[in-house]
C-alpha cells in the first residue's frame, strides 16, 4: 500500500482534507466524484503541480511528496490528451522515450499502437490535427513508453467510444500487471467502477 497522510489544501472557499489515504500499490484503482469535487486538484497535488505543506506520500518506501516532478516517474494522461502542439505523434513518442531513456521504444510503440487500434499513418500526423479520442490514446501511449512507476489518469477515456475504451482499459490493465505498478483513474463516470480493483469516492473534499 502507498499511504498519503496529512493532505490539506485550501483554495478560496474550496478545501481538500485527507488525513490518511491508502492506495493499493498494484492494480487498478478508481477515484470518482462529482464535477467540482476536487478530483483534478487532488491529482495536481499528487503529481506535484500544487504544493501541499505537511503532506507525505509513502510510495515504495520513498516520500513521493518530497521529490522533483521529473524524478517521480509518473505516467500522466489528462482529459484533453495534452500533447506537444508543434510535434507529430512519432516525435512525441520519441520525446517520451528520450526523457526516460527507453531505447526499446520503437518495438514497444508498435505493439501499443496495435493494441490501441491506431494506424501507423498517425505517426506522421501533427498532434493538433488528431481527434479527441486519438489524442487520449496517443497520450496514453506516450505515458506507457516512459515506463512509469505509477499511472495517473484524469478522465483519460472520456473521449473514447465503447470499443476503444475497452482496448485502452485492457492495455492499462495488462501493463500494470506485467510491470507490477498501480494506476489511479480519476473520473466522474461511475459505470467504470466494476472494472477496477479498488474504488474511492471524493466527497466534500474528503475521501469516502
Amino acid at each position: 500500500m502507498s499511504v498519503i497522510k496529512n493532505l490539506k489544501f485550501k483554495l478560496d472557499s474550496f478545501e481538500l482534507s485527507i488525513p490518511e489515504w491508502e492506495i493499493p500499490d498494484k492494480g487498478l484503482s478508481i477515484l470518482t466524484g462529482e464535477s467540482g469535487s476536487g478530483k483534478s486538484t487532488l491529482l495536481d497535488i499528487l503529481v506535484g503541480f500544487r504544493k501541499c505543506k505537511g503532506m507525505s506520500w509513502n510510495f515504495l518506501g520513498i516520500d513521493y511528496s518530497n521529490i522533483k516532478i521529473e524524478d517521480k516517474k509518473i505516467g500522466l494522461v489528462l482529459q484533453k490528451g495534452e500533447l506537444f502542439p508543434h510535434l507529430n505523434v512519432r516525435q512525441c513518442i520519441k520525446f517520451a522515450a528520450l526523457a526516460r531513456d527507453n531505447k526499446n521504444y520503437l518495438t514497444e510503440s508498435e505493439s501499443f499502437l496495435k493494441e490501441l487500434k491506431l494506424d501507423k499513418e498517425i505517426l506522421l500526423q501533427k498532434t493538433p490535427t488528431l481527434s479527441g479520442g486519438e489524442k487520449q490514446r496517443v497520450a496514453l501511449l506516450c505515458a506507457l513508453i516512459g515506463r512509469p512507476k505509477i499511472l495517473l489518469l484524469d478522465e483519460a477515456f472520456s473521449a473514447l467510444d465503447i470499443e476503444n475504451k475497452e482496448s485502452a482499459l485492457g492495455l492499462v490493465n495488462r501493463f500494470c500487471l506485467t510491470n507490477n505498478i498501480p494506476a489511479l483513474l480519476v473520473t466522474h463516470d461511475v459505470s467504470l467502477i466494476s472494472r477496477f480493483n479498488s474504488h474511492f469516492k471524493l466527497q466534500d473534499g474528503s475521501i469516502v
Partner: protein
Amino acid sequence: MILLIVLFLLSPYIILVAKFPSLNLINITEFISVFQFTTKQALLSAVISTGLGLLVGLSLAAVKNKKKYRLYELICYIPCFVPVIFIVFSFLNISQLLKFSISGLFGIVTMHSIINIGLVGVLYSKVILSKSSLSNQLSLVQGGSTFNYIAKVLIPLTAKDIMFIFSSIFLFCFTSFSIPLIIGGVRSTTLELLIYEKLIISNSVEQAVVIALIQFIFLLGIMLVVNRIDLKNTKLSSQQNSYFSFKGFLIIPMVISLVLALGLFINLNLSLLSVFNAEIILYSLFIALIAGYTMFMFCQLLFSLLPSRFLEKFLLSYSSPSTVLVGLSFVILFNHNSDIKFLSIFLIYIILFIPFLYKMFIQSYLGELIPVLKLSKVMGANALLKFKMISFPLSYNLCLFIAFLTSVWVMGDYAVSSLVFDSSSTLALSAKNYMRSYKMNEATNVIILMLICELIIFLIYKGLLNVGNKKS
C-alpha cells in the same frame, strides 16, 4: 539561475541605493520647480491620452469582425511601437511646414498623447471584451440610452481598469526621457532630463543619484497603489458590447498614423542621400542586431527556466526603472572600463524593454506554453531535452519577434545611447543632434538611412524566421 535573473533586473536599484549620498547635495528650489513641471506634463499627457484613448477603445470594442479588429489594433499600436525618433521627427517636420512651435510643455504633452492614445484604446477595448459579465449587466439596461449605458454600466464596471491605465500612462510620461530630450526647451526640464544634465553636463554623479532615488521612491508609491488588469478572457463576441456600436472614434489613431507617415517623407530630398558615413550605418546596424540577439538569448533563458511561479509573478509585477536611472547605475558601475561600458548597453536594453515586452507578448503566450512545459517535466525530461525539443522550438517565433522589436527600437534609440556613446556615433544620435538644432534637411537624410536600416533588420529577421520554420 532564477535568483540571478531577479538580481540582474533589480541591479539598478541596488547600485543606486548602495551609492546613496547625502540629501543636501541637491538644489531644493531647482528640484521642486522641475518636479512640478514633470508632474504637470505627465498629468496633462495622461488625462488627454486616457480620455481620447477610452473613446478609441469604445469604438474598437464595437468592431465584431476579427480581421478588422486586428487591423485597427495594428493601426492603434503603430505610434507605440515605432521608435520615438520617427514620431518626433515627423511632427517636427509638420510643425515647421504649418509654422507652429511644437517645443516645451505643448510639444511634450502632444508627443506623449500621440504615442499613448492608440495603446490606451487597445487596452480599454480588451478590458471591455474581457468583462464576461458585461453582457448580463447590459441586459439590465436594455432600452436605456447610450449615455446611460456608458455612465451606469461601463464606467462603474471598468473604473479600476481605467485607473490602472491612467496611472500607467502617468508613470510612462513621468519617466519619459527621449521626448523631453529633443522637444523640451530650457524651461521644460523634467526630472529625467535633470538627472541626465547632472550626469552628463555637470558631471555630478552624486546629485544625479539623489534625484534618481527621490524620483524612484515617488514612483514606487504610485506603483504599489495601482491595481492590475486581468485580460485573460479577452475574446471577440457578437453579444458583447452590442449596446455601443459607434466606430467613429477609430478615426483618431488612423489620423495619427497617417500624419506620422506623411511627416516622415514631407521633406524628402533623395540627393541628400549621397552624403553619408558608411561606418556609422554599419555601427548602428551592429548595435541594433547585437541588442536583438542578446534579447533573444535572454528570452530563451526565461523560457528554459519556466514553469516557475516565482519567476512568473516577479516578471509580472516588475517595473523597470527609468531610462536615465538604469543608464546612471551602469555608468556608475562601469565608468572606468570603456569596453565593459560598451557591453553594458545591451544589459540596459534588456532591463528597460523586458517588463513591457513580457506583459505585452510573453505573459499571454504562457497560457499555452506552461501546460506543455509541465507535461514535459512529468514525462521526466531533463533541462537540455526540454530546451531542445520543447521550449526552444515552441518559443522561437515569439523570441524572434521580441528580438526584432528590440533591434527596431535600438536602431531608433538616442536616449540610452547618449549615456554610453559619443554624441554622434550612431544614426539615431546624429538625427537627434540635427533635430535639436532644427537642421531638418540633414535630419531627413539620417532618418531615411535609419528607415533603410530598419528594412534591412526586417529582412534579416524574416530570413531567420523562415530558416527556423523550415527546420521545424
